[in-house]
């Protein structure tokens, strides 16, 4: 796979002295979900500002699609059209008085025709479910809403890659899941997603690749499983192993059962730990697309109350509009897998463009946990 962004021997220091980045070489693969993992002050945000062309390296270079960045106005503008940055603190990013003015800021700076700007603002606000707040002054929004507006502002330039600086920081548990699901959805629709985080649990569950940073240096760049196998690196970066990883390791050490494939989610963990326990057989995972004109809302009532969920921003919004009585509005695929692997049937309401992702996740789960779940697409 080709890299979309790469840094080679990057050095950068602030006026306060000391290197914020010291010989940073990292590679972001196109189309993947990458987590820049590291404790506070490890240089994650500074690296993002380099990747977006805001900071110019004092030594080393940044490559975009294999080409070194140039820092003339036109080149930088072209880079920022393709690489969007969402700041950790939404208040740093939002400066327009109203929501739609702020989301339109990037596209307007690209001198796009007003109809195109209008379309992009609509789409971005729709994606983050902030359409009804479009005329609101930004200072009247809650922190979570400001975070969504910041994401919409980054999405409105329709970038190839989205750099998200601590996107889950300061959010409640539900918003964290919604934000992660949204990034998964965007990634499925073709965007490369890079998040910075110090949360090992999120990195382990969410990321394909990880860049581990500590004190301005890259300690590791590779797959998630590889990283968490190297405990000394984690200690060096003042991080710990994820709970699921440690539990699985203990299972391996205590029972002698193979460590791989490692469970990355709760349903995978349940399946790994309780595979020898008797269940009444696997259930069926029903998938319905709300945007399919043949969708019958009556089908929802045929499933148990706690066995219905929605996945995808459009499906969640549409199911609320249709007043569908669903139980899970986040983590619904995981809930569905847990239920179906215990022999119950589950209905997941989603949209046509995400059916492939849902099926892939179910198949991945079946392969990983050696479990047979019947997947049925409802028309």
């Amino acid at each position: 796979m080709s890299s979309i962004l790469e840094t080679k021997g990057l050095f950068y220091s602030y006026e306060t002295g000391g290197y914020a980045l010291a010989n940073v070489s990292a590679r972001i693969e196109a189309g993947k979900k990458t987590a820049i993992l590291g404790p506070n002050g490890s240089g994650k945000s500074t690296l993002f500002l380099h990747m977006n062309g805001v900071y110019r390296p004092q030594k080393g270079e940044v490559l975009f699609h294999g080409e070194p960045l140039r820092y003339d106005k036109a080149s930088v503008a072209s880079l920022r059209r393709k690489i969007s940055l969402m700041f950790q603190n939404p208040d740093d990013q939002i400066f327009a008085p109203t929501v739609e003015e702020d989301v339109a800021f990037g596209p307007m700076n690209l001198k796009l025709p007003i109809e195109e700007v209008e379309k992009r603002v609509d789409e971005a606000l729709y994606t983050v479910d902030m359409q009804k707040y479009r005329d609101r002054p930004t200072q009247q929004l809650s922190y979570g809403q400001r975070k969504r507006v910041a994401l919409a502002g980054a999405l409105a330039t329709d970038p190839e890659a989205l750099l998200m600086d601590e996107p889950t920081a300061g959010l409640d548990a539900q918003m964290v899941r919604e934000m992660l699901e949204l990034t998964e959805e965007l990634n499925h629709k073709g965007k490369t997603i890079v998040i910075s985080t110090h949360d090992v649990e999120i990195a382990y569950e969410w990321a394909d690749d990880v860049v581990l940073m500590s004190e301005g240096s890259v300690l590791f760049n590779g797959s998630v499983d590889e990283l968490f196998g190297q405990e000394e690196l984690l200690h060096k970066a003042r991080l710990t192993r994820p709970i699921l990883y440690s539990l699985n390791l203990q299972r391996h050490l205590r029972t002698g059962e193979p460590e791989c494939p490692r469970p990355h989610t709760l349903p995978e963990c349940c399946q790994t730990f309780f595979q020898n326990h008797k269940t009444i057989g696997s259930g069926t995972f029903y998938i319905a697309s709300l945007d399919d004109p043949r969708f019958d809302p009556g089908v929802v009532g045929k499933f148990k109350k706690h066995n219905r969920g929605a996945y995808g921003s459009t499906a969640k919004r549409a199911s609320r509009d249709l007043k569908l009585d669903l139980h899970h509005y986040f983590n619904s695929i995981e809930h569905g897998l847990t239920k179906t692997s215990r022999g119950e049937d589950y209905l997941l309401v989603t949209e046509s463009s995400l059916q492939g992702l849902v099926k892939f996740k179910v198949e991945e789960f079946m392969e990983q946990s050696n479990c047979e779940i019947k997947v049925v697409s409802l028309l």
Partner: protein
Amino acid sequence: MSIMKGIDSLAYQSPALKWPPLGKLLLCVCLLIGSLSSRTIYGPLIVLGVGLFLFYYAVNGKAPLFMLYLITGVVIFNVTGTLIIAITQPGEAVWSIFIEGVKISVTQSGIDLAILVFFRTMAGMFVVLFFAASTPVPHIFNALSRLGLPDYIVETTVLIYRYSFMVLEQSILMVNAASCRLGFSGWKNSMKTTGVLAANLFIRSLEFAERSQNALQSRNYTGSFPVFRKPPSLDVKWAVCSISALAAIYAIGNFL
């Protein structure tokens, strides 16, 4: 802080938000001139009626509590001021009282002037409140840019408007943090804490400005702030309506 936020919220929720800001401004100025140029009470009375109606419409019939406090405050000042006017005008006394050997007289001209001033003030207050409760600051400045106000003034004002809320939020957090640690216990301590807070707020503002500069760059800022949704511009209808109102009030206030 709450009043500033409150007025801002009112303006954004006002049914008169979509009216052209310059139209509203022109109407308000005409009403104020009409009221002030009127020699009789009729002009200010008409403006008060129009102002009350516009204000009632702008706040959607529900004036928030802070607005009522504001109005009460103005009324108290107004009543005090008009009482002083009533007893300080020369002429034949229509009513007198001795207090501690001092004669205080109210003259007919004093009463007339006091009533005129009272209604002018009340009319002016409601007209201005209508404008404030229906026009957010960015709308005013974006509209003024069409009249030739330089872009850099408009952009700076809009940015100051946006960031003032954040600086206020930050200052409240800092004041609360200082209060929790007894920073305001005693006069001397309060002075010292206030000084430290002011200095820190300034430093934080600088840091904030630096981060915002990064954000601007990352979002392709090219030196000017584009306006996506321009407020409606002043049309002939508004101009005719405002000038007609001024003419009518002037005529009624001076020749009736």
